[in-house]
């Protein structure tokens, strides 16, 4: 069994501390706020100058002056603040943002990240990804373990252009939770029903297995949202 995209988001949400300042990339990370308890006081940061981003705006109530970094219409939570790009990237580059969660095209065993320039993409675009990868205190990756064609995305070395070298701290996938450690990539948890060997099979670098490596504790559903996939991993 593997996790759904919501399941990956749920698992990340468990590791975001109370009062954290968190920047969420596009894709799976945008699902994380649905799983944060109400009293966490976690502030979601958006590069375009918002701290305290709330839920997406209900259709018909969008404010044209209020979008997030993905240009979606959002709302604001109580205590939200607005600022210009200079202060927004002071927060990022200056190490004030505690966590960024973003997707990846490739992650290497040493923590190298490639997520801004995909093979075959003709028009490059980097946005705030590099500043985040170089600047935040904790960089987490949330992604599917393999490509849609089944190829590993966790590699011995990245082949795509780097976003930043040695920046990733932890990877969350549909199969596992892994830490980048000085000794190498360490498996911490695997999806319910899998085992370390199954994860290793889809992972290019040799995985270290943590002493307390264990199956994830993850409910099948939360608030009616399915966290564990119905079919077994391919």
């Amino acid at each position, binding site marked *: 069994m593997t996790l759904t995209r919501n399941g990956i988001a749920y698992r990340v949400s468990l590791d975001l501390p109370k009062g954290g300042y968190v920047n969420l990339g596009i894709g799976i990370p945008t699902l994380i706020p649905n799983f944060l308890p109400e009293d966490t006081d976690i502030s979601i940061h958006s590069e375009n100058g918002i701290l305290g981003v709330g839920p997406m705006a209900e259709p018909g109530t969008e404010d044209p*002056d209020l979008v997030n970094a993905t*240009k979606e219409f959002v709302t604001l939570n109580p205590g939200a603040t607005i600022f210009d*790009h200079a202060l927004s*990237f002071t927060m990022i580059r200056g190490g004030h943002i505690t966590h960024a969660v973003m997707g990846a095209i490739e992650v290497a065993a040493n923590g190298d990240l490639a997520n801004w320039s995909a093979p075959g993409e003709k028009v490059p*675009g980097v946005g705030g990804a590099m500043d985040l990868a170089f600047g935040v205190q904790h960089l987490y990756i949330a992604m599917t373990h393999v490509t849609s064609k089944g190829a590993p995305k966790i590699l011995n070395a990245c082949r795509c252009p780097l976003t930043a070298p040695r920046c990733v701290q932890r990877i969350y996938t549909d199969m596992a939770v892994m830490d980048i450690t000085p000794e190498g990539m360490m498996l911490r948890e695997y999806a319910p029903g899998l085992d370390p060997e199954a994860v290793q099979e889809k992972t290019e670098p040799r995985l270290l297995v943590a002493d307390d490596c264990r199956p994830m504790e993850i409910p099948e559903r939360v608030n009616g949202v399915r966290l564990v996939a119905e079919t077994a991993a391919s």
Partner: protein
Amino acid sequence: MIDKNVASCAEAVSDVFDGATIMIGGFGDPGVPGRLVEALREQGATDLCIIHNGAGGGDFSLGGLIQDGRVRKLVASFPSGTGSTAFRERYLSGDIELELVPQGTLSERIRAAGAGIGGFYTPTGVGTRLAEGKETRIINGREYVLELPLHADFAFIKAHRGDRLGNLIYRLAMRNFNPIMATAGKQVIAEIEELVPVGELPLEEIHTPGIFIDRMVEVPRLPQLFAPPKRGAAT
């Protein structure tokens, strides 16, 4: 009496010259001075270098300017948005030059120009393709890349309210690049939604002091682009 207000967008952009470098504020739609850019399309200046976070969308505003073939070079962090069809087409045909800059470096280079800083060292990009060929330096054990200021002949910005002295207030996420671009253009032209008398803008809420603004033009907010804010805190 100083009055920086001019009568029309056409008048505001009348002296933009061929080959000019122009900053355009905004991120996504909020804060984009779209009517000024439309007036620039009418005005005719060409061979332009545009500094903007993205590459515009559709055939309005920056998207239209690119589609018209008036932009020689774009300095941007995210020109690859799905809506940036005009840029994509001209970029792939080799008709437009691109300088791709990480968003925080873009913002800091603009600020440096406005603040009289000759250059700065940022960690962003070290060891990646975007720092290739650039000077790097280790300071206190960390490697940084030297980045230079981005100046512009003109900055087009957008604000919510302003007075004749050029004092400006932005609404919500309209702020983004606008306050820093306001410091960095030789001529700074503001599109504002509402002109108010001097003294009406609350002193401590003014985001851009008038010193940075050369000209401004009132372009009332289009009703169809406006939905009332949903929460008391948001106004």
